[in-house]
Each structure stands twice: as structure tokens, then as C-alpha cells.
């Protein structure tokens, strides 16, 4: 019964993602009707709009899908291992770590080659994850320590970013776009950078869904069931970092997706990860697709960073969720 409902939800969401992708491809400085897009995707030549679709719109749609899935599954995994619904890549400092090293590159090394920025951002995220694990480790890692240390590390990185911004107000411009998160100017090159990460880590995560369910039973029970809790937690943590780090490296610190998508997914399909993870991924895709559609289409030719919309959609929804959780314990 539960599975059947889950399946319906998956299929519905899948369709929503598909429809949004097609409509979204049409939205921007030039409106392109959906039938032209479908015709072009099927290989037909549609004239002048083809270049816009192929060079600018499609890569952004694909990146929105990948990033949406990456960030939200990362959030779902983190919420699973930390056993705290408030965990997300933003909260435990991963995106802040990426943000700090990106800000350092943008502000202090303006002439660095282009490829340095995503690499640095990813390394920043990875460093924070390693630090997080080392600092939180004391005869094993307790979930609560993990999240608290993460928040502290995030705060330190945030302070670093703030310092750079105050110290170099002129360079803030470029850094701000990155720090808000934006899919502006993304190309197929970015897709190829991001695709392997998501394509490998996403199925691995879904295969490990059962382990997440077991972890959710509590460390004692999990150990009783013969799981090596510490190892599992570490592996899962680094998967989450890989997913979020690679996504953030490409689009900048797009907030709230990793927090909200798993939350909505939980409301829809409950806590079983084999359903929760794919539903989160699809919801993340929907969120980022909508945010980037608004970014391109709200007041063309002006591009608005998509991160503003994930925050605008995300923050109020989150408040609503919190209130609802209070009334139904």
C-alpha cells in the first residue's frame, strides 16, 4: 500500500520535472513555445532559436536537474546520519567552506585561471568535512556533536567571508553572485564537470538507503544488527559532501534546497530512505528548475541570481513547516 502510493508520487513528480524542464527551456529573454522545444529535442532544425536552446537553455536545465538532485539528496543523507531534521549542507558548514575558498579565489586571485574556482570550492567543502569529522571524533562521532561542530565551522567560514567582503568592498560584486548561487553563464563544460559526481554518487546513495534506515534506529540497535556504525556514518558523510560539494562548486552556494526538499519529501513519503531519497532528488530538481526559470524570466534581460529565489521560496516554506511540526508533534 505504502509502496504503491510512493510509486505514484514518484511518477507524478517525474512528470512534473519533465514538464518543467520543457517549459523552462522556453523561458528567458526570448520566449520559445514548448512545441518548438520538443521538436528541437527530437532533432529537428527550428532556426534561430536553436542556438539559444542548445547553447544557453539546455545546459542550465541539465545543471538545475543535477544540482537540485545533488543538494537535496545530500541534505536527506545528512538529516539521516545526524538524525536531525535541521541538518543540511548549509547548516553543517559544507557550503560555507566552499563559499570561503571561492571568495578567497575570487577576491584575492582575480587572475587565476577559470577552472580554479570550482576546484577550490570543492576542496573547501572537502576540507570542512574532514575538519568536521576530526573535531567531532571522540571514541566515535555522536550525531549531535557532528551538527554542532558543523555549525561552529560554518560560522568561522562565514566570518572569513564577511571579513573579505568588508576588507575588499570593490571585489564583492563578483563574489556576491557566487555566494548567492546562480546558474547564469553555465555551459556544457560545467555539465560535464558535474555529471560524473551525481551519476556515480546518486545511485550509490540509493543503494545505501537501507543502511540509512538502520542508522535511524539509533546507534545501539544498528550495532546490534551487525552494522559498523562509525564506518557507515563516515562513508555516508563523505557521499553527502561529494554531492553537495560538486553541486556548489558549479553554481555557488545555492541555499535552502538541501534543507527543504528532503523535508517536503518526508511529508510525502515518510522516513523510509529508499523512497525518501528519490523523492527528495525530484523535489530538489523542481525547486532549482523553478528558481532558475524565475531568474531568467522575471525581468529579462536582467538575470537575477537563482539563490535569491530558493531563499524566497525556501525560507517562508520552512517557517510554515516549523509551525506545523509544533502543532503536530
Amino acid at each position, binding site marked *: 500500500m505504502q509502496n504503491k502510493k510512493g510509486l505514484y508520487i514518484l511518477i507524478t513528480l517525474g512528470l512534473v520535472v519533465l514538464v518543467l524542464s520543457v517549459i523552462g527551456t522556453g523561458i528567458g529573454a526570448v520566449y520559445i513555445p514548448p512545441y518548438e522545444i520538443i521538436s528541437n529535442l527530437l532533432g529537428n532544425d527550428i532556426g534561430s532559436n536553436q542556438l539559444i536552446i542548445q547553447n544557453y537553455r539546455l545546459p542550465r536545465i541539465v545543471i538545475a536537474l543535477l544540482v537540485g538532485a545533488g543538494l537535496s539528496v545530500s541534505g536527506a543523507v545528512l538529516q539521516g546520519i545526524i538524525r536531525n531534521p535541521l541538518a543540511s549542507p548549509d547548516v553543517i558548514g559544507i557550503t560555507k567552506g566552499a563559499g570561503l575558498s571561492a571568495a578567497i579565489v575570487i577576491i584575492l586571485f582575480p*587572475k587565476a585561471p577559470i577552472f580554479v574556482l570550482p576546484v577550490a570550492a570543492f576542496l573547501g567543502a572537502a576540507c570542512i568535512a574532514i575538519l568536521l569529522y576530526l573535531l567531532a571524533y571522540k571514541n566515535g562521532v555522536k550525531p549531535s556533536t557532528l551538527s554542532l561542530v558543523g555549525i561552529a565551522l560554518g560560522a568561522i567560514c562565514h566570518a572569513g567571508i564577511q571579513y573579505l567582503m568588508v576588507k575588499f568592498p570593490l571585489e564583492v560584486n563578483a563574489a556576491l553572485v557566487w555566494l548567492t548561487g546562480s546558474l547564469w553563464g553555465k555551459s556544457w563544460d560545467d555539465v560535464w564537470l558535474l555529471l560524473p559526481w551525481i551519476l556515480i554518487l546518486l545511485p550509490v546513495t540509493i543503494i545505501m538507503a537501507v543502511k540509512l534506515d538502520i542508522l535511524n534506529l539509533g546507534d545501539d540497535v544498528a550495532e546490534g544488527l551487525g552494522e559498523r556504525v562509525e564506518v557507515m556514518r563516515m562513508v555516508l558523510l563523505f557521499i553527502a559532501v561529494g554531492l553537495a560539494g560538486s553541486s556548489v562548486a558549479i553554481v555557488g552556494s545555492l541555499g535552502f534546497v538541501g534543507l527543504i526538499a528532503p523535508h517536503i519529501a518526508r511529508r510525502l513519503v515518510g522516513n523510509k530512505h*529508499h523512497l525518501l531519497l528519490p523523492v527528495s532528488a525530484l523535489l530538489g530538481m523542481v525547486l532549482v528548475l523553478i528558481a532558475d526559470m524565475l531568474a531568467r524570466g522575471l525581468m529579462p534581460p*536582467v538575470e537575477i541570481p537563482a539563490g535569491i529565489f530558493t531563499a524566497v521560496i525556501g525560507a517562508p516554506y520552512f517557517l510554515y513547516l516549523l509551525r506545523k511540526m509544533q502543532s503536530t508533534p
Partner: protein
Amino acid sequence: MKKVYVGFILMISIFVLAACGGQSDEPASADETNQQEETETTGEDQTSSESRVITHEMGETTITGDPKKIVALEFSYVDALASLGISPIGIADDNDENRIIEPIRDKIDDYTSVGTRKQPNLEVISSLEPDLIIADLKRHKDIYPQLEEIAPTIILGSLAADYQGILDGFEVIAQAVNQEEHGAEILELHKQKMEELRAQIPEDETRTVMPAVVASSGFYAHDDDSYTGSLLSSIGLTNAIQSGDERYNKINLEQVVEFNPDIMFHMVAGDETVVDEWADNSLYQDVSAVESDQVYQVDRNMWSRFRGLISSEQILEDAINHLYKN
């Protein structure tokens, strides 16, 4: 349960396939356009076959013929092009025509806005089919490959340049549009004009100046290394902040008091600024410029955003009018 996985894996593969399908089309279409471009350029070759290698901040770019359809992603480049008598077809004007200062608006024709300087719209730029794009190192470095795909692109410093840097950039732009000699003439005229303006400043001028953007978020003093600061000091107006490690220092009231400028030029941004808050403060009233009533409000677009030859002359005329003509 199996069904759920199968469904999900199916969906992922659909997306990937769709993505790859899109991609496999892409080189083909890119080739086509390349061919089109090639035939176009060979067509142009008959009129001017000469190609030049322009060295700029991101390396070297080969430009063939005389670029006519130019997109400028910073106001400096609009100023440079207008000085050379070229009207850009696309400008990143932050979607606000009023940011183009009047003396330059008079010189150029209608253009298409390509959005903000921060995130110029690639779709619009490509739809204009330009033959040259001029972009800024700080703002547009990361989209350089995408810009190059649209048209030959040169990257210069505008946002972070001082007055000399702007002059250097002008020379590169003149080369890029195949007007090197014309550009040199214009630069010579500009330097003469600057000399004339300098002559209007008394020899014994010892007062210190502080140009600053004043906004609600703070007071941003432009020091001696900044564009406005270096411009003013090139005609003998000493900047109140000689050495700083940043060109646009956000400073507080106490620092203003400490630097104690004799003249202040306020580039006002917004209705309410920090200076309004400071106005009643006795500390602020003790600043030399405030005491001697030498605080002038100036146009931020002209004084800070444009950074070019025409605007430089305008700024100095503006400054001299304020300081010596009243």
C-alpha cells in the same frame, strides 16, 4: 518495491539521454554556425583582410577586419567607443538607460540593453550577433569561454583600474576596432585637454580631497590608487588617503575625521545615506571640508561608474567649477 527503483532509474536515464541528445546536436549546430561565420568572414575578407592579435588580460585574441557590431559590458568601454566615434549595439547598462551620462548618450545611437554588468544576458548578446565583445576582468572572467563562443572577446580592467589603467584600456580598444592611429590622436587631444584643465588649478593648491561614494550602507572613500582619486591627483589635487591597501575603503566617521579632508566630493547613492546620519554629529562638523563648506554632491554615474576619457574630462570640469568658479 523493485518497481520504484526501476521507475527512478528509468527517469534518470531519460534525463541523461535527453541531455546527451541535446549535446550531440550541439557540436553539429556549432559547426554550422562556424561555417556560416567563416563564409561571412571570407566575404568580409575582400574588403579588409587584415587581422590583428590583441593582447589583453586573458591572453591574445585575433580580430579580423573592422568590428562594427560591438557589445560593451562595462561603461568604460562605452566611453572609449564613443570617443572613437563608434556606437555599441549592446550595452550592459544595468537595464537603466539613465546610467549612461548625457555627454555620451548624445554621442551614441540606440542600443540594446544586455542586462546587468554583474550578470549580462548571454542569450541577448548572442542574438545581437556581435563581432567584438569587450568585457571586464573582475566581472566577466568566468564567462569568457561563453563570450568567446559568441564573438572575439577582449577582457580589460575597468572595475579595478586607476586612471592610467583606463588610458591603457582605451589604447587596446582602439587597436581592437582597427583605429590605432585615430585612437592615438584622440588620446593626444585628451591629454591636451587635461593639461588645460590642470592649468586652471592654482600652483599653490595644497588642500586635500576625498572623493567618496556615500550610500545608506556606508561611506566609501576612493583613495589615491582608485580611478577617481588618481584622476584628481593627476591634475594636482592631493588625495586625503595616500596609501591604503584597497582602492575603495569603506570608512567610518572617525576615520573621516582622522583623514580630515579639506574638500569632499560625495557621489550620492540613494535617498538616505550615512552622511545624513552624521550631519548633526559634532565630530562630522569638525571635519575641515564640512567646516569650510567644501562638500560637493556630484553625479555618481559620471564620477564613479563611467571611468573613461569623456567622463574624466567631465569630472575635472565639474571639480574645477565647484572649487574655483564660484
